[in-house]
């Protein structure tokens, strides 16, 4: 009897050890991947997925730098953060041969400035950051950043801006027509003055509340991500998403292979899974952004397919990524942001 129990225990241990190899640790944004898709991956591959979440690119970077590197296999940084993480040596590389789905990547997203040739990352979702306006409150033309930075009387005191240095300063620079990374004293002073003046007509700074304040009517206009604006509209807010003529921020979230990944092979399987059009479309249907994978159209829901937030008008201006400044220049922008919020 005793021997039988021992054997059973030993077998159980072996089973557990064999099982333990089939895991994957994902470090991901909150509410950015439907649970059904995770379950589907586990059903197809037998790999058990653990997901930890973060709420900003910077929080994720801080946590990896503080010692979490080596615990996660993949993370989902935004464009500029991919470049920063590569510069910090936090990313592993792969070859296209290791990913059968590599060919599914939309060609316009293969040779991206933040990871030329896609050596460490694959596209997840992309979208834009501009602003949405309550059409019951303001009826004029909305396609200018002036609505946020030099607002008409109807919107003054009713504007929410994202509590995010990168987006506010990038959009402000586009409004003034100056580069995103400049050392020029006069340009920086002009940016500072413009923002301080604009702040007088802003009601609040908030990123995770950006959608709610538009739905509740606390804000009549607000800087917002396009998918978030689509959700606000779906929840009944009479808002329209703007494509400002001065430009707007384009961003792309990417699945990266982390350095010292404990389950590198499984990480590649996961990335390949996300490159399959049906799976990429499932994320898009959930998050209301746009996939970076070709062939997703047949799997998209009608609401997402026709949403004005992801289908810019033909004459819309081009958006740009947030630029990554060098250390000396970044210091100046940090000072501008601190000065704006002091």
């Amino acid at each position: 009897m005793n021997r039988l129990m021992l054997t059973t225990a030993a077998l159980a241990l072996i089973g557990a050890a064999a099982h333990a190899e089939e895991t994957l640790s994902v470090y991901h944004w909150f509410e950015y991947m439907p649970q059904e898709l995770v379950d589907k991956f586990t059903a197809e591959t037998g790999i058990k997925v653990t997901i930890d979440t973060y709420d900003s690119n910077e929080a994720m970077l801080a946590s990896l730098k503080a010692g979490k590197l080596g615990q996660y296999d993949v993370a989902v940084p935004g464009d500029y953060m991919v470049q920063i993480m590569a510069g910090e040596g936090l990313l592993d590389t792969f070859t296209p041969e290791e990913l059968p789905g590599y060919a599914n990547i939309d060609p316009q997203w293969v040779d991206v400035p933040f990871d030329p040739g896609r050596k460490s990352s694959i596209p997840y979702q992309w979208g834009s950051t501009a602003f949405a306006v309550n059409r019951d409150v303001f009826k004029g033309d909305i396609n200018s950043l002036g609505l946020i930075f030099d607002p008409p009387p109807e919107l003054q005191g009713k504007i929410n801006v994202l509590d995010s240095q990168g987006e506010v300063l990038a959009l402000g620079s586009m409004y003034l027509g100056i580069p995103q990374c400049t050392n020029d004293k006069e340009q920086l002073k002009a940016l500072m003055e413009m923002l301080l003046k604009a702040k007088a007509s802003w009601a609040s700074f908030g990123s995770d509340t950006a959608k709610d304040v538009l739905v509740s009517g606390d804000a009549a206009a607000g800087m917002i991500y396009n998918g978030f604006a689509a959700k606000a509209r779906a929840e009944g807010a009479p808002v329209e998403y703007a494509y400002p003529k001065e430009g707007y921020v384009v961003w792309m979230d990417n699945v990266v292979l982390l350095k010292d990944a404990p389950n590198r092979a499984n990480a590649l399987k996961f990335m390949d899974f996300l490159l399959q059009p049906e799976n990429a479309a499932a994320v898009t249907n959930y998050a209301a952004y746009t996939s970076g994978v070709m062939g997703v159209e047949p799997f998209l829901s009608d609401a997402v397919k026709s949403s004005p937030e992801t289908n810019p008008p033909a004459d819309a201006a081009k958006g740009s990524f947030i630029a990554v400044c060098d250390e000396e220049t970044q210091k100046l922008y940090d000072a501008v942001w601190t000065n704006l919020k002091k």
Partner: protein
Amino acid sequence: MAGPGSNHAPGPGSWRGILVPLLLPTWAMIGIFLLLPVLLMAVYSFLTKEFRGGVEWEFSLAAYDQFFLNRGLFGDEPPTLEWTYITVFARSIAQAAGATALCLLIGFPTAWFIATRPASSRGIWLFLITVPYWVNLLIRTVSLRFLIRENGPLNDALMGVGLISEPLQIINTNMAVQLGLFYSYLPFMVLPIYAAVERYSFAYSEAAADLYANRWVTLREIVLPIVRPGIVAGCILVFIPSLGAFLAPNLLGGAKNFMIGSLIEEQFKKSLGNWPFGAAVSMILMTLVLIVLFVQARAATRQEVR
């Protein structure tokens, strides 16, 4: 059955020898969860900032320099006193003081009311005070946001009874922040004052009345000095957490200006990524709090001696 002889309490001597091992868990708690993190923070505040978060192990006073000295946007001007962060501290202190005053104003009569109820019903009143605190602070703060918004129930009610004709702008103002802090920390004011008032013997009030003291004089000369420790404890318990709060300022005040809490958060979790500076701000905040506590403790001892 234990005889009368065996029924004696252990004297101080009987702990000798096992006292140290018995105290070890306490020391370990204090060491690991209190001293070590504070020490880590102190060390980090004197290290060199690494670009985009992290530290280099090289001694530097840059964090404290940044806090106190202003060298201009481009770092090429002669250093003058930096007002940016002093302003942030002053704002937080003012908000915390306002919230504490509000809590005292409402908390003292409340505590007095509860303590003067019959002993049988006091428990119910105390229970009612604590009920809202079973709900998470974040949820309570967000709910308050819904109540005080421009088209919210508060404004609807006030306009309904004709008290105001235009909705009050409360959300995204300093008033909203103080209201939020007040709501968050009110029991910390009520409970210590209640404990002090409950011990107060009303025979003193009767004696004062016999000696022709009116109610105001009785309150000032008899009641307040006796329940003062409860008031001081309540004020400290409300003031200190309010000082570092960032939920109420962010959700109710609109986050337009840094408070101490959000300034520190921004150094670690957001784009500013300056760990030594975040640690230095925390150290300065802690020093200020310790000074307040120290002054209070000194005053309390002096009063006992008197």
